[in-house]
């Protein structure tokens, strides 16, 4: 055993897994799901064929053991014709051979199955990464994860194990032929119960499968109530609603209990039949086989052999039943997976797209129309020109389309009509990578990954030197608080790490964009969650940063707007006024009103902070 394990371990480390392979499903959606999966399965052809053939050999060897056994009993013990020892050696030989072959067949099969799962998972991940923002606007991450996990599992299970279960039919065939050559009526009596095993099993699964879903759903019901009570404990206690909550849980628990009992009763009705039917077969073999032995038409050892066959074959018959279940589940799962894989990215790269290198930072938006997923108009013929090196503040009410514009500039979406030009090129004629390298965005709610602060800042340019990272952090006003953390730049943040405040996250995001050194920079409300105080501190840094690049600042604080050379005021999806801040205040009443409203809101926050801070 130890030896086999070692060789196997060596094999694992040596087993080549081609990390560069790029499997795809068949693009023709009218094909059956199995045929669509073929391109993914075919690269594993050899492994699967190896697994099937060794399984086949193993099963044939296994099926020969009872034959050797009954031959031994009859030839040596019942009739004394031959010595016993050779039979024994044959049996041991068969058993050892079967053991070794089955070890390889299982190992090969599992390896093929897991390699297939690897392909399916990475294929899904790659596709998800390729999809455009518009896809993520309409789906929930939770759904995607469940598809990328349990559905892939279900498909993999079927693709990998269904053919192997089918191979067992061959085993059944071998046994059937061996038995027929010995005694035809006894053969049918012996295996006569097996179809009943299959039918009863099918009947049980037909009922068990739905009821176990019900049980699962009701378990979830109970969990939901508990979850609510844990999170809403305060409200429940405040309104003295404990009794009602206990009753609602007691009801959900009763529903769960009822469904579980239903499930148990279905099992209690069918499982004993499935388990005991083969025994009835053994009884009948004893009777009919006994009749033939008594009438000297057969030797006694054959009864033992037939018994062993019945016992051996009952497991595959139960597996055959599983096959239909697996295939139903896999078909449903495959449908759900294809739904994602058939999704095409809306924003795509031209085949002959050009790379924009060393952009001047000249940005032209010309008559841009846009609505999310073809819905309500958000941008309604917007035109704006950002000259190289210029800083423009974009001001407008919530929902006026400011953030949408920033998303169009990075080609998270494409305009419905109109055009966006970088250095005179339509962005749709440029490679996606070069557009995104040229235009850097800092959003109002930045996402940090569960990696170190260093890696978060260097996210867009993993090859950045430590000094570059520190320089970016310093410019963004993040260096000081990072150094105050116990692990400094090595502090792991994000969902599974240290929690930073909104303002701190913001500054990391600014640093992240700075490291990439984009010729065009968009600050989308990026400083709004930073205290006015801190913002003033980093203004100097921001000013340096804006030098030499084109910057679009979406903001409403006068201090931030003050950084800009000019202001573009947006309303109803278009720029309605442009000019210097002070001029606009006088000439454009809507601009002044928007600023005042935003200001009031901001100051209320400041006031709230004042209540909290000044008291000290």
């Amino acid at each position: 055993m130890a030896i086999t394990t070692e060789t196997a371990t060596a094999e694992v480390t040596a087993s080549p897994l081609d990390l560069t392979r790029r499997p795809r499903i068949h693009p023709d959606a009218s094909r059956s799901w199995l045929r669509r999966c073929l391109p993914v399965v075919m690269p594993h052809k050899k492994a699967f064929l190896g697994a099937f053939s060794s399984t086949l050999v193993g099963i044939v060897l296994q099926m020969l053991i009872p034959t050797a056994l009954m031959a031994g009993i009859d030839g040596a013990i019942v009739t004394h014709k031959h010595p016993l020892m050779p039979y024994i050696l044959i049996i041991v030989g068969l058993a050892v051979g079967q053991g070794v072959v089955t070890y390889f067949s299982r190992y090969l099969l599992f390896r093929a199955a897991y390699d297939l799962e690897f392909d399916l998972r990475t294929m899904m991940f790659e596709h998800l990464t390729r999809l455009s923002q518009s896809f993520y606007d309409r789906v929930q991450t939770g759904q995607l994860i469940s598809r990328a996990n349990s559905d892939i599992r279900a498909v993999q299970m079927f693709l990998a194990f269904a053919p192997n279960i089918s191979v067992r039919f061959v085993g059944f065939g071998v046994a059937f032929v061996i038995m027929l050559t010995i005694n035809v009526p006894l053969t049918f009596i012996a295996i006569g119960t097996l179809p009943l095993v299959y039918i009863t099993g099918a009947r049980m699964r037909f009922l068990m499968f739905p009821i176990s879903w019900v049980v699962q759903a009701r378990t979830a019901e109970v969990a939901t109530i508990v979850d609510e009570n844990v999170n809403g404990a305060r409200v429940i206690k405040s309104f003295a609603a404990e009794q009602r909550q206990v009753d609602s849980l007691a009801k959900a628990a009763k529903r769960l209990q009822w469904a579980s009992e239903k499930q148990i009763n279905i099992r209690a009705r069918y499982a004993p039949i499935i388990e005991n039917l083969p025994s009835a077969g053994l009884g009948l073999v004893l009777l009919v086989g006994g009749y033939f032995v008594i009438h000297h038409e057969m030797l006694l050892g054959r009864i033992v052999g037939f018994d062993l066959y019945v016992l051996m074959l009952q497991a595959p018959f139960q597996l055959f039943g599983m096959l239909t279940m697996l295939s139903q589940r896999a078909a449903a799962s495959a449908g759900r997976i294809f739904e994602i894989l058939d999704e095409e990215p809306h924003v795509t790269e031209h085949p002959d797209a050009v790379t924009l290198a060393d952009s001047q930072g000249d940005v032209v938006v010309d008559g841009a129309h846009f609505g999310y997923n073809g819905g309500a108009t958000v941008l309604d013929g917007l035109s704006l020109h950002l000259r190289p090196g210029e800083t423009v503040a974009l001001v407008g009410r919530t929902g006026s389309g400011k953030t949408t514009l920033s998303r169009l500039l990075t080609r998270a979406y494409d305009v419905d009509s109109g055009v966006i030009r970088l250095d005179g090129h339509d962005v749709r004629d440029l490679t996606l990578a070069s557009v995104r390298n040229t235009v850097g965005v800092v959003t109002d709610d930045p996402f940090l990954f569960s990696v170190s602060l260093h890696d978060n800042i260097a996210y867009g340019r993993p090859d950045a030197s430590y000094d570059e990272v520190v320089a970016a952090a310093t410019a963004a006003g993040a260096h000081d608080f990072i150094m105050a953390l116990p692990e400094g730049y090595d502090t792991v943040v994000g969902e599974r790490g240290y929690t930073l405040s909104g303002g701190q996250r913001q500054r990391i995001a600014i640093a992240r964009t700075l490291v990439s050194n984009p010729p065009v920079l968009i600050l989308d409300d990026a400083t709004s969650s930073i205290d006015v105080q801190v913002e003033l501190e980093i203004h100097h840094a921001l000013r340096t940063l804006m030098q030499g690049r084109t910057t679009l600042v979406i903001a409403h604080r006068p201090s931030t707007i003050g950084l800009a050379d000019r202001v573009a005021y947006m309303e109803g999806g278009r720029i309605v006024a442009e000019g210097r801040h002070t001029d606009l205040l006088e000439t454009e009443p809507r601009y002044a009103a928007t600023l005042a409203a935003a200001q009031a809101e901001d100051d209320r926050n400041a006031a709230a902070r004042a209540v909290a801070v000044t008291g000290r």
Partner: protein
Amino acid sequence: MGGGDNVPGLQFGGIPEELAATAEKLTASEPDWSGVHVPFHHPMPSTKRFSLRQLLGAHKPALALSLLLVVAEAAAKQAGPLLTKVGIDRGIARGSMHTLLVIVVIYLITVVLAAVISGLRVSWTGIVGQRLLNDLRVRVFAHLQRLSLDYFTDEKAGRIMTRMTSDIESLNQLLQDGLVNLLVQGLTMIFVTVVLLTLDVKLGLITIFFVFPTMGALTFWYRNRSDTGYDEVRSEIANVLADLSENLAGIRVVTATGRERRNIWQHRSIVKRYRDANLYTAQLNAVYGPGSQLIGGVGQALIVLIGGYFVLHHQLSIGTLTAFVLYLGNFFAPIQQLVQLYGTYQQGQAAVRKLSDLFATVPSVQEAPDATDLPPIRGEIELRGVDFAYSPGVPVLEDISLLIPAGETIALVGPTGAGKSTIAKLVTRFYDPTAGEVLIDGRDLRGVTLESLRRQLGVVPQEPFLFAGSLRDNLAFAKPEASDDEVLAAIDAVGLDDLVSRLPDGLDTYIHERGTSLSAGERQLVALGRAFLAQPRVVVLDEATSNLDLRSERRIEVALDRLVQGRTAVLIAHRLSTAMRADRVAVIDEGRLIELGTHDELVRSEGRYRDMFRTWESSWSSAAS
């Protein structure tokens, strides 16, 4: 099943369509559980420590019947090979078809018996187990309701959830499969051993000495390795899912920074580690399964060799030899399962320990045994020399004395951590003061029942919480029996009319905590409406710190004014504009009441409040300029 979440885009969840019809048919006979009622009492019912024995002890007669069925089942199942032996030796060997027929009939009867008893056993033990689990679920949940707020704030929500989910699931495993299987397999092994030794001592001993050590060793080897192997698989799949979910959550950044290629590469290497972990367990399984088959095959050969020798020397009947060959396989399942069950048993025990700790947790705020109901109050609140500390030695409130006459609105202001919220929690008796007393209408809160007190209070927490259910259910949370008119009055009072008309099903629209159909402002209005509908004498409100748009702010201000009208109100104010509208303002700092008076009085005096007001005023005027 629950409420249908209508999520645009991809549909997932719920019972698959093809199963729904059968599921419906199966559940058609289900009784109506709407009348289920389990009385809840604040005092703890028993102080006895919870244990597996105690849990099972309550169902002794039912368990005794289970035991009986288990023994009968094991016996009936092992009769087959023995009867085969008798049939061969007495019937076939002697050429008596009649005897053979009789024995086969007996054989078939035992098979039917085994099936029937097995069915009864599965159903009976299952139902007893479910009954037990149901009791336990309700008991754990009731105890959670009993525990005070500090338990819910100190303990992570996820961990509390585990008590009711995976811990009970572990016990379910133990009760449904574990204990019974342990018995069935143990008994089977004993039966087979006894039968083999009775049939032939020598061959019996040889068989046992061959099977036990080899199968035992192989199984132990497998279990030890597969434990670590599967742990590895679990942690690797967790990594795969974590990486996937993080990439999906941060997809904007991934795209914006052009990290696609690199992240795909990274994901590939993570999935590869998962695949390698799987492959390790695959190897173990590839050794274990065929390994036990090998032992079986060699065992059969051994029995035929030695048994055959005995038969040839007339020391053994051919029927007995057959019985040995057939019985051999019956050793395998018990050994394999007993080793597996050890894990189930350990997990079950761990769950029992955790539940036992939970039941031993005493609520920090307890109802006095002689607590009386608080009669309808006028709403006068008094704090008399109140000290409070969450943990000893770290005082949060020190010597606070404050009288709030009935009908007054008082605003508590002060820096974060000053103790404002704690005062509110003492008034609602989420905590008891460490010294001094809190009185309502002159009665110490510790002397009244929790329910009678809280029914007369209306609490609006800082973060409004929505329960899964209709909007109506959420509003009428404090008073489920409220009439439509009452609900509509509350909606009108807090100005939610437009929300009701906007929602697809009006008041019956299904909303839930993580639902996004309600804006932050609307959620707060629902919380206010909830308090309004309760028609409390005293309102305790912790103002939300989150930023709302101006319009929502206005609406909340209006609703709040309506709510506090004619009631005693304690407002924890985060905004000075709120404080300004209160009858009096109490300034709390470092656990002490440092200033108390009307807004105008405090602004005129030389105190902390005036400083705060000035700062606020200047920031306001700078905004206006």
